[in-house]
C-alpha cells in the first residue's frame, strides 16, 4: 500500500456520495483519475486490504431479525458445540473469547420471530443456555481507523 492507497482507504471509510458519478469528488481531492481509483479499489480487494466495497446494509432495517448470543460452554464440549452452532445457517459469525461466556455468535434471520426459535433450537441441541443480547441502542458503527 502506498500513500495514495492509504488516502483512498481513509476516504472510503467516510463513505461515497449517492450520485451518478460518486468517485468524482475523491478524484478531485486526491488528484488521480476515476479509472485509477476504481483500479486501486479492485487491487485492494484482491489483496484483502479491503474486505468489501459497496453499500453497508443495516440488517434490522431490512426487516429481518438479528441478535448477539453468548454461551458458557464446558471446554470438553467446545468442539462438539461449535459444530452444532455453526451448522445453523442463521449463525453468521461465531468467536471463541476468553471469559466464562466463551462462545459469542450473531444470529441473523429473514423473519424477526425466527430468532427466538433458533435460540431455543440451539439450547435444545447443545444443552447450553443461550444468553440473548440484542442491541437496544446503537451509538456508532463504522470505522475511523487511520491507515
Amino acid at each position, binding site marked *: 500500500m502506498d500513500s495514495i492507497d492509504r488516502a483512498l482507504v481513509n476516504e472510503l471509510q467516510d463513505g461515497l456520495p449517492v450520485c451518478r458519478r460518486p468517485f468524482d469528488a475523491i478524484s478531485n481531492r486526491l488528484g488521480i483519475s476515476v479509472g485509477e481509483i476504481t483500479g486501486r479499489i479492485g487491487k485492494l480487494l484482491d489483496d484483502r486490504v479491503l474486505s468489501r466495497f459497496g453499500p453497508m446494509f443495516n440488517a434490522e432495517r*431490512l426487516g429481518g431479525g438479528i441478535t448477539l448470543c453468548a454461551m458458557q460452554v464446558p471446554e470438553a464440549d467446545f468442539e462438539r458445540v461449535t459444530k452444532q452452532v455453526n451448522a445453523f445457517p442463521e449463525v453468521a459469525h461465531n468467536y471463541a473469547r476468553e471469559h466464562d461466556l466463551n462462545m459469542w455468535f450473531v444470529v441473523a434471520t429473514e423473519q424477526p420471530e425466527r430468532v427466538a426459535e433458533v435460540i431455543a433450537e440451539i439450547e435444545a441441541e447443545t444443552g447450553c443456555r443461550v444468553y440473548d443480547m440484542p442491541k437496544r441502542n*446503537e451509538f456508532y458503527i463504522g470505522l475511523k481507523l487511520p491507515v
Partner: protein
Amino acid sequence: MNAVLNPSPYQLDAIDRQIIIATQSGLPLVAQPWDAVAEQLGLDPDEVVARVAAMQEHNVIRRIGAVPNHYALGYRANGMSVWNVPDDMVAELGRQVGDLEFVSHCYERPRHLPLWPYNLFAMVHGYNRDEVADHVKVIAGMLRGVCRGHDVLYSTRILKKTGLRIGE
C-alpha cells in the same frame, strides 16, 4: 451516529430488494456504478440513485463505502470491552465512547445478572493487546465515577464468519 431502533422498518418494495441483492456482494468498479446496476436490472439510473438515497436516508443503508480488513491493515488485536454503567446515563456515555477513533462498534445491550452485569459494549482495535489495553484505560478514565465494573474479552479464535445476506 445515534440511531434508536425503530420497530417498524422502512418498507422496501420489490425493486428496492432487487437493488439490494444486486449490490450486497459489492458495487461494480466503474465510474458510474449505479448506471451499471440499473442496466443489469433494466431500470433507469436516476431511479436507482433515488432509491439508494432514500434507503440511506432511512438508515437501511448506513453508507456507501469500504470495509477495511483490520488484520491486513496491521490492527491485529481487538477486544470487546464491556461496561456496567447506570441505565439512565448509558445513551450519553455511549455517544462519548462511540466517538473515540479506536472504537468501531458501540452498543447498549441487556444485562444478564448475576453472570453478566454489563450494558455497554465497545469494540476496541489496536496493533497489539498492549495498545488495546491502553485504549481501554482511556475509556475507563472517561467513565470514572459512574462505571461499576468492566471487562475486556479478547477473541481467541474465529469459529465461523459469513456475510449477512438476504434471500435471492
